[in-house]
């Protein structure tokens, strides 16, 4: 996956780059609007991460530029601004998703994956990881071709874990992914443990390998 990060904060763009590149993405960074214009006109990307406040202009100008050139790149706005108007305007201008800073890198990664899946012509709706396969549309999970019934939360958790395979995920990032704004209001993330435990149990029951590792007190990791 080829991703363009349009963000003037170098530390932020680098951290995104580092995380995404270790998850089989290729990232380029544009720290100004003009830089972004240039890169968009020269290359094709699968996804563009777009900060709205740039030193030489507004992120919306890039959205307009993409539209006028009939570019079909998926765009995820990453902005410090959290208000409905900006969000709606961004989505109307052709952005596909909107993430408010600060966000978890793991969350960003699964959003990118979901976006690319949606964008792909005749979307790839099947995610497979060894003996486990998930049909995104029907929400069916098969382990060794046997249907496992998972709750909505467990399915979300499974997708999140597989999407971030090989990465240590902090409990707070998992909690936030599962319950949105709700989770970051609490320090108590015990429910994450409960979900993980149930998911593991169900998968193992159907003969899957236990891929979920607990990493000290920090979080969990999906690993071969």
């Amino acid at each position: 996956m080829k991703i363009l990060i349009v963000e003037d904060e170098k530390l932020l763009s680098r951290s995104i780059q580092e995380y995404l590149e270790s998850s089989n993405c290729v990232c380029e960074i544009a720290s100004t609007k003009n830089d972004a214009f240039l890169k968009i006109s020269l290359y094709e990307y699968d996804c563009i991460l777009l900060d709205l406040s740039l030193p030489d202009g507004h992120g919306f100008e890039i959205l307009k530029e993409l539209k006028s050139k009939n570019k079909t790149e998926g765009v995820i706005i990453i902005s410090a601004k959290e208000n409905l108007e900006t969000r709606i305007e961004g989505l109307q201008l052709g952005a596909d998703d909107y993430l408010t800073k600060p966000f978890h890198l793991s969350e960003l990664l699964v959003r990118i994956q979901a976006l690319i899946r949606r964008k792909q012509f005749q979307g790839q709706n099947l995610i497979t990881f060894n003996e486990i396969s998930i049909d995104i549309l029907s929400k069916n999970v098969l382990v060794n071709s046997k249907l496992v019934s998972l709750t909505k939360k467990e399915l979300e958790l499974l997708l999140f874990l597989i999407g971030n395979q090989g990465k240590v995920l902090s409990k707070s990032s998992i909690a936030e992914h599962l319950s949105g704004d709700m989770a970051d209001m609490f320090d108590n993330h015990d429910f994450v443990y409960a979900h993980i435990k149930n998911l593991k149990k169900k998968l193992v029951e159907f003969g899957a390998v236990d891929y979920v590792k607990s990493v000290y007190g920090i979080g969990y990791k999906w690993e071969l």
Partner: protein
Amino acid sequence: MRKKLLNKTLQLYAIYSILILLISCFAFYFFLKKIYVGETHEALVLKSKMFESTYQNKLKIDEIATWNKYNTNQKIVVLKSKHKTFKEIEVFDIIEKEKIPFLEYQHPILIENKLFTLQTKDNLFEKEDIIKSILMLFVFLLVFLILGLFILTQIISVKIWRPFYQTLNSIKSFEIDKMTKFEYSESKIEEFQNLNQAFENLINTNLGIYQNQREFVENAAHELQTPLAIFQNQLALLIQNKDLTVEQAGIIQKINLTVARLNRLNKNLLFLSKLEKTDFEKQEVNLSKMMQEHTVLFAEQFDAHHLIIQSNLKENVILRANQQLLESVLFNLLSNAVKHNYINGKIEIILTNTYIKVINTSLNQELVKENLYVRFQKINPSSEGNGLGLSILKKIVEINNWEIVYEYENNLHAFQLNF
């Protein structure tokens, strides 16, 4: 009790009038007396002159007794002095049975070459009578004066002070956080116009400062988002390190929690500043449904704290409010009930047509009502709260003209929202 300015003036006017009238009452008396006595002097002199010119030559010494018999006010007596003298005397009046003041004029006359004294007298007015009349007159004047002053003051208070009261009312209804302009009607009175302009300046200056302050909070919170994002991302990268020791992982976990807390604080600050400046659109909201959804959302938190939930929700309670704000209210009520609860505690949720009530068990003592909604006034220092939740709640309640009541009974904390 405080007096009205006008009554104060009226009081001063009244005291002053009474004083002036009293003084003038005495002055009037002495002045009147002086004139009267002067007139009496002249009359006596004239009478004695008349005697001299009319009777003096005709009168014989033998006839003096007869004269005296028939003239009560002009008698001829043995010579007392060769000089003309005036004397104030008192004579007992048989008819009125009281002493009456008289002025007597003695002057020497020659009758058949012998000197006698002619005593001519005339009565003076009676002091009490005249003082009574004057006092009556003045009391009459006083009553009319004060009555007039009072009526005038009332008219003044209504008419002349009207712009003042208008200004007062517009200041009373002015709320800085609503960002309303200070409005006043032009006054022809210079003082009021000055007052209004002074207020306008003061308020505009303060509005400016307030606006700045608010923008500062908002901007500061916004500016913090990016560094927070960097902080959080760097941590996410750090935990990927395969060589972390258990000890390091422990430290990172603590940092993780702190970042989460910072995030929370910042989000709340942003939300609070947004609450203060945005007009929120209202729509019909099914509160019962929203409450049910929230209890489902909170299910994980309830389970994590092993809480027993009793909910008594009336169906189809419809409220006209802003969806987002209402969600925030429910969220805050429920999250407080969870955060300040203990493991195996209880939460009771009641919804009726007129109120929502959330009752929870807690290890906390009764909360101090005065500080409840003050920003950063944390109820329990070690709790997960950041001291903004209740301020947000209060603000939303204010925006919607609702009412929030806190009660503490039988070790149970209850927040009731009346709408």
